């Protein structure tokens, strides 16, 4: 039973995890993108559509990432070049993503695809208990797990990471070293959109093999919340996403045990966990919020 929950945590948490890694990059550079939900939807539809047309889920993955990137480009342009309020813009992008994908997605609802299927890793998948939890997933899930240490390394151990973080904390440093902070932020937002798009692809092409309008259903918003919960650290964001996935799997497992817990209560669990996360953040002594995020919220950005 616990193994089932842990397996479910990875299965249903991966799309959220990919999106939260992307959002993390964007926020490290000082831009909050509430449009992550929209990027995931565009990624899901783009990935699904290209998989239908080409029959190749890898092409679909690339296309989905690009679709997610394109919609985040709108966000980046409005916020960085036009000076629009990032929260308002992000929300608009989110609803724009819902509308535009519902419109273009109509013809794809009943389409069937040959998407990604779980690929057990030889030998490792045979390890009792752990094998089933960790080594029997679709290729995108494996890649998403590999992405996390890579991101951690880039952000905290490379010059690129310093530039990224400087864009979010002290843009004077970047000016001093002749780097345009706006460019860094643009690239960070686009990376975020790309990864959120891949998260959408994972949901549509690998996990459900389906496209339905608004199928992301709030996962993108949860992803943004997770970044804050994770205090902008990739590994913590991964844990948070799997926690969210585990909460979803847990409520399903609990129901099947016939325990007398109201399903309405269980539906709340993933969100309650987020609320608890809020409390934890509030109690932390020293804030790790990238400074530019606060600046923009205060109205000067």
């Amino acid at each position, binding site marked *: 039973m616990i193994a089932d929950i842990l397996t479910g945590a990875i299965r249903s948490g991966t799309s959220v995890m990919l999106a939260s890694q992307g959002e993390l990059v964007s926020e490290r550079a000082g831009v909050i993108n509430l449009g992550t939900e929209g990027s995931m939807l565009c990624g899901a539809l783009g990935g699904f559509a290209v998989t239908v047309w080409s029959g190749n889920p890898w092409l679909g993955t690339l296309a989905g990432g690009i679709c997610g990137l394109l919609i985040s480009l709108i966000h980046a342009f409005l916020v960085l070049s036009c000076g629009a309020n990032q929260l308002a813009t992000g929300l608009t992008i989110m609803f724009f993503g819902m509308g535009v994908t519902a419109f273009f997605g109509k013809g794809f609802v009943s389409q069937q695809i040959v998407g990604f299927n779980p690929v057990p890793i030889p030998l490792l998948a045979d390890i009792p208990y752990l094998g089933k939890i960790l080594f029997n997933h679709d290729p995108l899930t494996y890649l998403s797990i590999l992405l996390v240490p890579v991101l951690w390394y880039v952000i905290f151990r490379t010059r690129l990471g310093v530039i990224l973080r400087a864009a979010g904390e002290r843009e004077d440093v970047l000016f001093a070293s002749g780097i345009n902070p706006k460019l860094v932020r643009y690239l960070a937002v686009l990376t975020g959109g790309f990864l959120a798009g891949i998260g959408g692809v994972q949901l549509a092409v690998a996990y459900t093999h*389906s496209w339905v309008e608004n199928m992301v259903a709030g996962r993108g*918003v949860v992803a943004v919340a997770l970044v804050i919960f994770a205090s902008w650290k990739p590994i913590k964001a991964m844990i948070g996403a799997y926690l969210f996935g585990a909460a979803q*799997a847990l409520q399903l497992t609990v129901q099947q045990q016939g325990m007398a817990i109201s399903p309405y209560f269980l539906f709340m669990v993933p969100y309650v966990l987020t609320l608890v996360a809020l409390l934890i953040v509030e109690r932390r002594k020293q804030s790790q919020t990238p400074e530019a995020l606060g600046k923009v919220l205060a109205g000067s950005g």
Partner: protein
Amino acid sequence: MNTKKRVKIQKKTSGMLLLLLLVVSIVVSGCSQPSNPANTGASSNSASSNAGTSEEVVPGVDGKAIGFIFVGTKDDYGYNQAAYLGSVRVEEAYPDLKVLRAENVPESAEAERVMEQMIQEGAKIIFPTSYGHLEPALNVAKRHPDVLFYHQGGLKTADNLGTYFGTIWEPVYLAGVAAGKISESGKLGFIVSVPIPQVLLNINAFTLGARSVNPDATTNVVFTGSWCDPGQQANAANSLIDAGADLLTLHQDCMKTVVETAERSGIKTVGYHADASELAPQGWVTGSEWNWGDLFVDMVKVGMDGQFKGSQYAGKYRGTLADDVVKLSTFGSQVPADVVTFVEEQKAALLAGELNPFAGPIHDQSGNVRIAKGQLLTVEELESMDYLVEGVIGTIPQ
């Protein structure tokens, strides 16, 4: 700005952000639940409020168009597809009439706007096909006594608004019989949205069907909280499969994800709302479907002839298996012939009135007798079911 103050502002910032996100995520996940196709209760009060004007106006006649509004897309292998197919039959039966369709119409004031638009385009008969379209339809009906409304599944009516639905639990029972015969483990999985009476009625009918042929069969119920969230459906399906279910069924608005997930896992599926056998050539058993075509055509005819008042459709019409308004889906190619024969026999008995799925004594989960021996339930009593029968594993909120 000194450091302390900055830290404080930043803390506030992240807190505010999280709160905002929480609100947004609740709104978004709320938006994702398209419809409630069923009756949420059986309190039946006819709301006839425009008695004054409707004496001389005959609703439904002299129309140039027929309007259909759907809460989702027409090809979702579900509730909306079934209603859409009905509208196609109307189109074929009345080539002179324009059939106006609007998909993805939310259950809000937007539905009123869509209906007003259809009336402007000449529609005198409108089918609002989702449960939540009822209130908007009642509002529009009050403003247009000359327009006739046929609402799907509602429990309120007006002088120019009748509701229709079907006793879908009959084929659900028969599908349960098939499931009980086919399942080897006797562990059946049922994926549903929220515990409303129509859903509970279907779970109970399915379980009673399965246990009529396999008394040890159990139905594991999983509530997803949504009518169509493929991600949650996949979670639910995988979770049930991990727990040993070898047959899945569902009461959701869309079913592609569940049927395909079951097929990939090599287990069986019983469908709901529409025929999805093509999605699961190996695992498809059968399912329950709406067959609105003939009914819609007849309802349009009655309306256009000015015969709505006094007809069976003025009020709450419930079509049955015998009326062919609800039906059992085609059997999958892998279903053994003796199972098909047996289910067909049961169907004949049901049609002949020899078999009543809800004949007592029927016990609930805790063993209390809910339907006594010899007691016959009315449709209203059935549609207000608030318990789960013996053999169902799952909880409804008290």
